[in-house]
């Protein structure tokens, strides 16, 4: 596939991770994230092993660390929230330099920070190595209800169309003298959201007509299913299985 239609999160490549079947990668992500979330927060060694698993897959994928880290910025709101927890948590409290922090809050912060970062990292890695249509196809093959996949597909398809309409509205406003500094643009832009909603709704109606015209009867057509061999499933799910082993050992050890 050419890189011309890639989305912003995708990193073009031909690594074994890129080539793995999307349904295997989706299930591996789900398994890995579940294992990370179920790991007791105080088993610090378990989290370093989880991180090691993630970094191994990252190395195999050939996605550059810079690219990976810049996409991981989506994690920042969680980090900020986590940093707040020690200061607002309940007693008992301990002194940490000039601050008095809640011990429960501190553990909560670590828990949130570690799990959110590992989960976001794994998701970023999936997005970096899988094209959107393949992801959607993978969801279908995992028997996710087709109407849900269709909704996700339409969102991806029309996000740019609607963002384009918003951009043109902004340009038209600028052209007629609107000062685009932050607070000044908030009001007219918010007002244009209503118009944008109506336009998107009308577009939805026309798209529905276009679907009816081509024989749509309430169900998205099936896509061909290329089966994945048992061996490939096991290799593909190895990171998730490793994370599960780490999680179970951590639960037993504590």
């Amino acid at each position, binding site marked *: *596939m*050419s890189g*011309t*239609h890639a989305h912003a999160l995708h990193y073009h490549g031909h690594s074994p991770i890129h080539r793995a079947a999307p349904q295997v990668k989706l299930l591996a992500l789900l398994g890995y994230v579940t294992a990370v979330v179920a790991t007791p927060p105080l088993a610090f060694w378990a989290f370093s092993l989880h991180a090691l698993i993630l970094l191994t897959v990252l190395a195999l994928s050939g996605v550059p660390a810079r690219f990976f880290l810049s996409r991981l910025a989506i994690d920042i709101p969680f980090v900020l929230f986590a940093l707040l927890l020690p200061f607002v948590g309940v007693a008992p409290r301990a002194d940490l330099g000039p601050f008095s922090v809640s011990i429960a809050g501190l553990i909560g912060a670590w828990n949130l920070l570690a799990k959110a970062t590992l989960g976001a990292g794994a998701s970023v890695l999936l997005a970096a190595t899988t094209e*959107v*249509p393949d992801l*959607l196809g993978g969801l279908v093959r995992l028997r996710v209800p087709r109407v849900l996949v269709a909704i996700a*597909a*339409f969102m*991806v*398809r*029309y996000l*740019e*169309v609607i963002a384009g309409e918003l951009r043109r509205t902004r340009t038209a406003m600028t052209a007629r003298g609107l000062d685009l500094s932050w607070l000044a643009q908030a009001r007219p832009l918010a007002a244009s959201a209503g118009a944008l909603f109506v336009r998107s709704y009308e*577009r939805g109606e*026309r*798209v529905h*007509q*276009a*679907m*009816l*015209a*081509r*024989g*749509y*009867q309430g169900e998205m*057509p*099936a*896509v*061909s299913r290329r089966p994945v061999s048992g061996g490939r499933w096991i290799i593909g799910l190895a990171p998730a299985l490793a994370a599960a082993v780490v999680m179970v050992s951590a639960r037993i050890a504590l």
Partner: protein
Amino acid sequence: MTSLHIRGLRFAFPDGTRVLDGVDLDVTDGERVALLGPNGAGKTTLLLHLIGVLRASEGSIKVGDLELDDENLREIRRRVGLVFQDPDDQLFMSTVAADVAFGPANFGVEGPELERVVEMALQAVGESDLADRAPHHLSGGERRKVSIATVLAVRSELLVLDEPTSNLDPAGRRELVQLLAGLEATQLIVTHDLPFALELCPRAMIMNRGRIVADGATISLLADRALMHRNRLELPYGFDPANIAAPSQNRKS
């Protein structure tokens, strides 16, 4: 190829606005006909009737030997390929190939046969390379051609095109002329682009206020100044239909 017969079609919107006021229209097998008329004449509304998305309060539509009713709706939608004015409405899947496959898959084509049909349709419009691209990353001309491929893929016998030259640059427009001229199917083309109508369609109809008000050779309709003026139709500056040879019915590119 198939024919189209419309008799006494009437339709009003729920608020009472009458849009179709007794439309009578015939297109014969293999013909290419232009449907002209000012904005608000009811052209797009008429097109939505051809695929049964809107249903008339009175009148009948026949595609070939088949009357449009609840029972035949599915077969009618297979026979009639409607290409919408805005390709962003027509192309709704995440890749071009998936979009072209949408129609045939709905009509029960699957597996390797589906892949073959998709490839043939894209080949017919000369855009096989676009199969894996996302529709929103295509140029205007490419989107238009892929839109046409989506209806060719269901082997539509009657192609209905709504403003196919809108938003095309002159080169894209010329390629579209060549593409449409080379297709076998019966064609009904709604357009404001009068030179385009003259180039492609030997016959034209003018629609105004919900009725067909004129029907004849495109060249003589365009040359009738009084008729054109009455129906808010205007030729581009400097364009004189008298200087142009009338197109023949079965011209191929």
